[in-house]
């Protein structure tokens, strides 16, 4: 089989710069084969290498005494919550595939994040999703929105994980480039934690799960280019999710970990076999040799390039404990899954060697492919965009007060960003696994852990407008709000995962937004003592009109020492006293009120005193823990009036009035 010759167009088409190509040649000591070019292009793509973001991400607080895994070291963050239990949690984006095929794009996003959790040995017990779309008046936005909600629901419901929370925002800025961020949370006993390692010389490498097809080839690089017309043509087969096979993969994986026949395991996400083999070997400083003839294929005539880059879903790469290969095959057979030996680990060299029909198609030092190893790392030029000064100068303090305040409040309550999203989350099964204590629609979701008195509170938050108007403080607010939501539900914030949705990093104004946002996130996380345990960066969220709002979605994990502390937001009893914690300032810049009533998205984002915010949150949590509180609600979009109204009407069976002066 003859591979295409390497030409400069081919290199460019693979998204590699001239310097990067030269670096490849110096690593190999020769020009790369076509398959090797594909492997480097996918591993050094923005999506896998974080090349334009890792140096910034390293400035975030990533240690904490409860952390069992350094951020980025494993597939998901791992936090010790006592009782011999650890919680794995992570959030990831599937924005570009969802813009092309919303149903499958969103479904495979959920599938991917679930695999990141159970590859660590944790059983997923909660899923959330953070979605952003253009305006609902646009028919195409409605098409994307319906497809994404149905895709998330069908996948999560069939897999059997409760979808318990999240958020949906509509703003013209996201039209043409929706944001689909999926989060998952899982629980694992300390002695059942699995690692993505490949340390044992001669250990067998196996692929389990679905067969390999031409799904989503260029998927990884695909997410690293603007979503323009050319990328439309180059779109190859869309990735299709099979939640039924994923459920079998979950049960088989947990069973194998339990009986101890797995040395190391990693899910196949972006860049499929390439990423899992190189990351497992690269992280362990070993080599890996695989034979593509043994990979179960779904289509005929697949080339080594296609097999290595395929993003077929529901597959895992594992290294069996020596001598336990038959156990792996037996357990997979019970669950009707492929389990094929495809190669072995070696400590004699540190290369990833890929063979097909007895011929070597790739021989690359594994470590040079991976993040933290040879993958490039850049700091890009950052320039403050001109709009920042203009918007932050506007005060709007002479705006007329609307005469009909009730009418204004009702109008605000009806805006898509504030109105109840029950018509969305009623399509998600949020009570499967019978752990859901606080269901969707609250500040944060609370799920109990059977066998322990503790419970978990989770929330995803980000106001893209605030971050657009003031990237640093806007991002601090996102962290503060997520922590506040967890606290209002009775949980103590313990860790953050983030999904950083930004435009093209090669544009200095975008990179400035990114740098400022990371700085703001670090400041807030240090004050709230919530280390960043990992997450995902999604650049190139642009559409022909320009970049979407910078949207660093925050996924916050909180722990309730006692599930009885679980608190909901709606008012409970007649003559209960309402207490406002913190100060209500007359700030309307950047608010939903300003946007939907006055049609202005401008002015600086609201002020934030991190120390004060921490004090307010600590006071609220302590009051809850001492049983002084019947309900607690955070004041966010729509401000004080909306927060009060929500507390009155959230409980549909028992709406209740309130009087404040």
């Amino acid at each position, binding site marked *: 089989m003859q591979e295409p010759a390497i030409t400069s167009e081919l290199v460019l088409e693979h998204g590699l710069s001239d310097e990067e190509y030269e670096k490849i040649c110096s690593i190999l000591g020769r020009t790369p084969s076509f398959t090797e070019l594909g492997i480097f292009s996918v591993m050094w793509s923005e999506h896998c290498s974080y090349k334009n973001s890792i140096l910034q991400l390293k400035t975030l607080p990533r240690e904490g005494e409860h952390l069992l895994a350094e951020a980025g070291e494993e597939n998901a963050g791992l936090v010790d919550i006592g009782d011999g239990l650890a919680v794995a949690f992570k959030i990831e984006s599937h924005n570009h595939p969802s813009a092309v095929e919303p149903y499958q794009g969103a479904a495979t996003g959920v599938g991917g994040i679930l695999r990141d959790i159970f590859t660590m040995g944790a059983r997923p017990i909660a899923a959330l999703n953070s979605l952003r779309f253009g305006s609902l008046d646009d028919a195409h936005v409605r098409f994307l929105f319906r497809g994404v909600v149905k895709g998330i629901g069908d996948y999560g*419901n069939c897999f059997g994980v409760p979808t318990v929370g999240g958020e949906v925002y509509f703003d013209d800025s996201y039209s043409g480039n929706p944001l689909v961020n999926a989060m998952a949370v899982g629980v694992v006993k300390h002695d059942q934690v699995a690692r993505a390692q490949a340390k044992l010389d001669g250990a067998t490498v196996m692929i389990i799960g679905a067969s390999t097809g031409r799904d989503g080839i260029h998927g990884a690089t695909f997410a690293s280019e603007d979503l323009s017309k050319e990328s439309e043509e180059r779109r190859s087969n869309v990735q299709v999710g099979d939640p039924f096979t994923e459920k079998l993969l979950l049960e088989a994986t947990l069973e194998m970990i339990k009986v101890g026949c797995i040395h190391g395991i990693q899910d196949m996400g972006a860049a499929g076999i390439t990423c899992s083999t190189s990351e497992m070997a690269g992280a362990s400083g070993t080599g890996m040799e695989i034979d593509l003839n043994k990979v179960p294929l779904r289509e005929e005539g697949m080339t080594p390039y296609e097999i290595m880059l395929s993003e077929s879903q529901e597959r895992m790469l594992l290294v069996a404990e020596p001598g336990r290969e038959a156990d792996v095959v037996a357990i997979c057979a019970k669950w009707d899954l492929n389990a094929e030996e495809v190669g072995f680990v070696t400590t004699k060299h540190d290369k990833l060697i890929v063979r097909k029909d007895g011929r070597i198609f790739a021989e690359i030092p594994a470590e040079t492919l991976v993040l933290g190893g040879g993958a490039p790392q850049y700091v890009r030029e950052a320039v403050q965009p001109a709009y920042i000064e203009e918007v932050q100068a506007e005060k709007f303090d002479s705006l007329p007060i609307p005469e009909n305040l009730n009418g204004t409040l009702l109008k605000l309550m009806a805006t898509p960003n504030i109105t109840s999203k029950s018509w969305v989350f009623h399509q998600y099964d949020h009570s*499967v696994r*019978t752990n859901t204590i606080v269901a969707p629609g609250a500040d944060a979701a609370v799920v109990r852990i059977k066998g322990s008195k503790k419970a978990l509170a989770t929330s995803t938050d980000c106001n893209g407008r605030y971050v657009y108007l003031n990237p640093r403080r806007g991002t601090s607010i996102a962290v503060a709000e997520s922590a506040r939501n967890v606290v209002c539900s009775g949980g103590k914030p313990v860790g953050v995962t983030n999904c950083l949705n930004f435009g093209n990093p090669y544009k200095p104004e975008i990179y400035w937004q990114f740098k400022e946002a990371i700085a703001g996130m670090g400041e807030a996380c240090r004050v709230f003592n919530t280390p960043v345990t990992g997450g995902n960066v999604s650049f190139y969220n642009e559409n022909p009109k320009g970049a979407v709002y910078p949207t660093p979605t925050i996924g916050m994990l909180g722990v309730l020492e006692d599930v009885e502390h679980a608190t909901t937001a709606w008012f409970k009893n007649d003559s209960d006293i309402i207490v406002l914690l913190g100060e209500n300032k007359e700030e309307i810049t950047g608010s939903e009120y300003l946007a939907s009533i006055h049609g202005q998205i401008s002015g600086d984002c609201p002020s934030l005193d991190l120390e004060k915010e921490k004090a307010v949150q600590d006071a609220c949590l302590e009051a809850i823990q001492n049983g002084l509180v019947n309900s607690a609600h955070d004041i966010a979009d729509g401000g004080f009036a909306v927060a009060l109204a929500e507390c009155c009407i959230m409980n549909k069976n028992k709406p209740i009035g309130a009087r404040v002066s």
Partner: protein
Amino acid sequence: MKAAVIVFPGSNCDHDMYYVLKHVMGIDTQFLWHKDTAIGEIDAVFLPGGFSFGDYLRTGSIARFSPIMDEVIKFADGGGLVFGVCNGFQVLCEAGLLPGVLRKNRNLDFICRQVTVRVENTATRFSSACTQGQILQMPVAHGEGNYYAEPDTIRKLEENRQVVFRYATVEGEITDRANINGSVNNIAGICNDRGNVLGMMPHPERAAEFQLGSADGKFIFDSIVNKIAEFV
């Protein structure tokens, strides 16, 4: 009393059912794998909710051919108690142990929310601990719960009082608004003519503890335990 919960590939409420039977009701409970070919010394078999075989082709259409189902049919014909919830109800219909079929919800979407059902017949092994007309709050979570059967089958079900639960308003009325998925006559749960097999779409195992928002589901599990005690 000994109970068994059947696990099909794709069942995802098997752990939930097991937890309620063993830890809430204190019943000696075990799992049965869909490929097993014997039920053993069991008093009551439970078919849990989920997406057996991905609900591909039709909900329950493939699970119904699992080896264990031949045994379940024999067990039911022998008078053993069989209880199917959600996907379990769909499998029982496909297997012919219960009449009718569960079709796509009227609004074509998956629905997960708290509903109220009214107890129509307390003279069954699944509702003896309830009172006539009692209102039970419990969640539904399904995409295909729209019960249908030919008119004369429906007439027989009504005449034999085999309709055990109906979707109702909080006040106990049977209205179209309360009909969450379009089922004929608001049917939420039926039993076979002999009264030893019951299928229902709402999830009593998700409403057996106040901590989850309602404990009404426990009336059904209490009924099952009381009736078994009488027999054993």
